[in-house]
């Protein structure tokens, strides 16, 4: 059952990711990204991280991607035009990625002996325990994120507000 579910959602995930690359329309890319995020939430559930899964849906799919769609609508971003830009990044990046991928897979395969099998819901992450950790051990990090969010809000307002005539 676990394997079956994992494969189903992993296929959705990978399909969405590939679709994001293939699509020429920005909105379709955004929708496939939502599919990726949704299936990732399901995969988190399989691992028992229920709180993370729900937050993933609320924050990523429900807030961040809505913002993306909103901007796509606002700027009327249509089809991507095929243009000839600098392809340096491509020529260096893609082979680099390929090599990196091979090394990564090699490492994982070499790792096979202590490859831990994970059972369904192997680490139960309930909301209260996660919250407990967040407000004790990670208290400072939590408080500091407020500075981050403040900067982001301020920056968004400063950069995107209407011209002050």
């Amino acid at each position: 059952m676990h394997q079956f579910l994992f494969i189903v959602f992993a296929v959705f995930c990978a399909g969405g990711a590939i679709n994001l690359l293939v699509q020429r329309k920005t909105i379709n890319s955004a929708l496939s990204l939502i599919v990726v995020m949704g299936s990732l939430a399901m995969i988190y559930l399989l691992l028992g991280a229920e709180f993370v899964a729900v937050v993933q849906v609320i924050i990523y799919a429900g807030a961040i991607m809505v913002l993306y769609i909103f901007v796509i609508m606002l700027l009327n971003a249509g089809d991507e035009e095929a243009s000839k830009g600098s392809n340096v990044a491509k020529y260096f990046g893609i082979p680099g990625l390929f090599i990196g991928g091979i090394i990564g897979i090699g490492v994982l395969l070499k790792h096979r002996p202590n490859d831990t099998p994970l059972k369904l819901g192997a680490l139960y992450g309930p909301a209260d325990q996660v919250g407990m950790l967040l407000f004790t051990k990670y208290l400072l990090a939590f408080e500091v994120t407020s500075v981050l969010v403040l900067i982001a809000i301020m920056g968004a307002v400063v950069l995107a507000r209407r011209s002050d005539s």
Partner: protein
Amino acid sequence: MSALTFLIVALIKIAITLGVLLTVVAYTVWLERKVVGRMQNRWGPSRVGPFGLLQPLADGIKFLLKEDLTPPYVEKNIYLLAPGLALIMALTSIALVPIGPVIHLFGISTPVQITGVVDAAGQPSDINVGLLIVLGITSLGVYGIALAGWSSNSKYSLLGSLRASAQMVSYEVSLGLSLVGVLLMSSTLSLSGIVHAQQSTWFGVIPQWFLFRGQFVAFFIYMIAAFAETNRIPFDLPEAETELVAGYHTEYSAMKFAMFFMAEYANMVTVACIASVMFLGGWTGPTISFLPLAVQAFLPLVWFTAKIFFFLFLYIWIRGTLPRFRYDQLMAFGWKFLFPLALANVIVTAFFVAWRA
């Protein structure tokens, strides 16, 4: 309970809930036309059946038989996907709402809640983070509207859906925050757990609903935000017909339009369900001891339905009474008044809970 029984019970529950929900949706439309009619000194629907009771049926047939236009120049796939998405998101969240306590039928005990089960100890339990899932599904509901507006390739639709998504995202913040107070007091995210936290009474009379335990500010914030979330008057700017024709569903007709329509009313019902679960004790209510036991078993359902219809009536009443906001007023109200108030409510409740502990 074996896996098979579990599956069958779940399917039956889904079928019943869905049937009831769709009926309620259909008759809310009828109720709205009737009540608004009376408020405006008209009759409302009265021709089809007694008191126009068969009107929803006639409307449904009309929607099914009308020509289903797909305008040219629309983004076909997304255009077709959007109404379905809106309706599915609207119908899904009802699955998590605890409608009643555990019932015993044919030797099977199960709570009246699609996602609820009875655990080994005979206690009802449901998803631990139920409320968050409801919020998550609600936040996904905005996609139906946003995509409808985008794919229609029409300026009215686009403006309507831009407004709608901005409005829903903005008010979602206050909506979520208004529920935090209740969560602090009940210290659980499970919806049936929240209902159980409100079961007892003071002096055997006054129910200990969270509304009476200091969360009335949160309740009003919730109701206002919920009106905005469901795009109802006085916050129905996305479909303000005087400015935007019909907003995001301008280009939709027949069944696809009906799906948006149903989604809106289903959302109203869900919002009412969450309101009654969070603030009004869900299905709890006074027991009436002189009634026969068989009837008493159904009392929780009656209480729940009564609470839902109270909210639905409120919706209609306000629709018949209030004018529409201007868009900048709506945004200013949401961010400058509602949001700080919701935040203050959270802080005060947190202090109160910490002081009591």
